[in-house]
């Protein structure tokens, strides 16, 4: 049995180069970057190099990058921080398919009396820009729309949304946690004000994230108690992980072409192969505007957790939007918001690739998955027409 890891939207393997770059900061270079002596000073330089590396990947200025503890913190800091920093009352606009790290802060603000509008998506997981226009017409808003959906890989039209929000005098945050490192992103061309990214989705370790804050955008900090990160995020810097994130961003800039070509081709081959060999299978989400690494596919009449356990027995790692896997009783909110019928919602499987995947990984899945689907359908009381 060979391990085939196709769950990279959940987390990625830390790149060996990243781990190597981090090592000295656990042993020799352990100083506090704020200290006025050599121990600190030599470490400070590496933190600033990392900041420049992160900034370079997304076309930002280093001073516009704030390091955080994770993507969830970046999302919280962006949304809560922007709303709290606003002088006048603001609305919040988001979508129904955002990650909980966005939806939950928005719902908390709603409980505090701030009007929150959740934009609907269509059957392909797309928002309608006219809905956004209408929502923006109700007053100044902090808008949070994801660049790419973690479950389906569907891309929102962030460039168009950014122009609309800018014209309306609002603030646009984008949760780009799934997009950074997989797609070219340039904030000097796309006028977003705030952008979240997370280390462990791009081959850095867990426990490090960053928020891009466009110069002039006001954000009230969540963590008070230190001057670090220009006062926007108190707490002594997590130096080894910051260095790791910097190195990961540097690597991602070099491998971006591979993600958008070779990885996309592997994903397309997986999709075509599964559709050709498995009856009653359907791809979830807009295939035209989609991350290059993600395939969300439903196998009707069977349930996702069963598929995952059989795949795991073959060494294949994927994930599912089925109710049973989440510990809740209902299928994923993303799949439901798209109106995917129950017949398919419970059998949705997400394959998410990375640059470490090979053609033989895909062959292995194409060889092993169809018999699993067949076996489970033989057990199912619902007959495939």
């Amino acid at each position, binding site marked *: 049995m060979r391990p085939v890891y196709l769950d990279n939207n959940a987390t990625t393997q830390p790149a060996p180069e990243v781990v190597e770059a981090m090592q000295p900061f656990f042993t020799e270079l352990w100083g506090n970057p704020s200290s006025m002596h050599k121990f600190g000073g030599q470490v400070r330089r590496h933190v600033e190099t990392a900041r420049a590396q992160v900034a370079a990947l997304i076309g930002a200025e280093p001073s516009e990058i704030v390091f955080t503890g994770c993507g969830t913190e970046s999302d919280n800091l962006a949304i809560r921080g922007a709303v709290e920093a606003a002088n006048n009352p603001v609305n919040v606009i988001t979508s129904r398919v955002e990650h909980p790290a966005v939806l939950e802060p928005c719902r908390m603000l709603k409980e505090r009396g701030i009007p929150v509008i959740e934009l609907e998506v269509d059957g392909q997981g797309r928002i309608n820009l006219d809905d956004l226009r209408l929502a923006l017409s109700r007053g100044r808003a902090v808008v949070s729309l994801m660049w790419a959906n973690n479950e389906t890989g569907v891309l929102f039209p962030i460039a168009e949304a950014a122009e609309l929000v800018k014209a309306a005098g609002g603030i646009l945050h984008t949760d780009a946690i799934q997009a950074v490192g997989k797609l070219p992103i340039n904030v000097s061309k796309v006028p977003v004000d705030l952008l979240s990214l997370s280390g462990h989705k791009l081959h850095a370790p867990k426990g490090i994230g960053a928020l891009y804050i466009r110069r002039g955008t006001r954000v009230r900090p969540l963590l008070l108690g230190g001057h670090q990160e220009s006062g926007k995020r108190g707490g002594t810097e997590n130096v080894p992980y910051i260095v790791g994130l910097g190195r990961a961003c540097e690597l991602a800039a070099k491998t971006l072409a591979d993600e958008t070509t070779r990885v996309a081709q592997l994903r397309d081959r997986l999709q075509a192969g599964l559709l050709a060999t498995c009856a009653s299978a359907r791809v979830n989400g807009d295939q035209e505007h989609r991350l290059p690494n993600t395939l969300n596919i439903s196998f009707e009449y069977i*349930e996702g957790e*069963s598929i995952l*356990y059989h795949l795991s027995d073959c060494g294949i790692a994927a994930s599912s939007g*089925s109710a049973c896997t989440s510990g809740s*009783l209902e299928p994923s909110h993303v799949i439901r918001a798209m109106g995917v019928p129950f017949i398919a919602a419970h059998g949705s499987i997400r394959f998410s690739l990375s640059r470490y995947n090979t053609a033989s990984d895909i062959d292995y899945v194409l060889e092993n998955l169809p018999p699993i689907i067949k076996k489970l359908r033989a*057990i*199912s*009381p*619902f007959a495939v027409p």
Partner: protein
Amino acid sequence: MWEYTDKVLDHFRNPRNVGTIPNPDGVGEVGSMACGDALKLTFKLDKQGRIADVKFQTFGCASAIASSSALTEMIKGLTLEQAGKVTNQDIANYLGGLPEQKMHCSVMGREALEVAIANYHTGKTSKKILEGKVVCHCFGVTEDEIVRVVRENRLTTVQQVTNYCKAGGGCGKCQPEIEVIIARIRAEQPSAPPAPKPAPHLTTLQKIRLIEETVEKEIRPALKKDDGDIELIDVVDNRVIVALRGMCANCQVAQFTLKDVVEAKLREFVAPDLVVEEVPS
């Protein structure tokens, strides 16, 4: 991943008795596509009235498939009377236990068996008939079903009820109703409260001292947990006048606190006719 036992994984990987029996003596179908799991059970009896053969088809997760498979193994060779006594806990035990959140898989097995046995006796529809009032509309769970899982598994919380029969796990609107059902069943269980002691006659001084003591020992510590506090202002006949302080002072549920905590405790420890009032602010 879930903490499945080896036996669960074995029955999931190698399910026993898969399929449908042609011209069965009993058919039981429960669950639905919308709910995320469904089970069809068919059986055939031998001349002695024992289950000679039983087969299942399941749409669901690993533990749903394992529970169905286990059930078929458990009831083979049993009379319908014997099989009818199998509980969801028996199915879970047979598998060496199920994760708490997956107990509803064992309940689905037991329900399918019941429907199949009823189908044998009545010959009527093999579809499960919903009896009684539907409490959870998301998953179509009736009051009778909830009452049953609560009784049989001695459940005490809404979360447990959700784990065992899904009720309350969708939109959550029915959770207060489930709480009422749990409270009702717990009330009818044998741990009857001891007969109330006849209230001793207290002098006014004794009564005030006892009220002070109860506030000090029983009430204040509970309020302090939420950064609240209470001050005893006066006692006039059976009226106890207090002021809520700290976080309690501007708490939206202060009225609730006053009646259900302060008054309840004073009535329990001092006299059953006490009425608590808040000093006008």
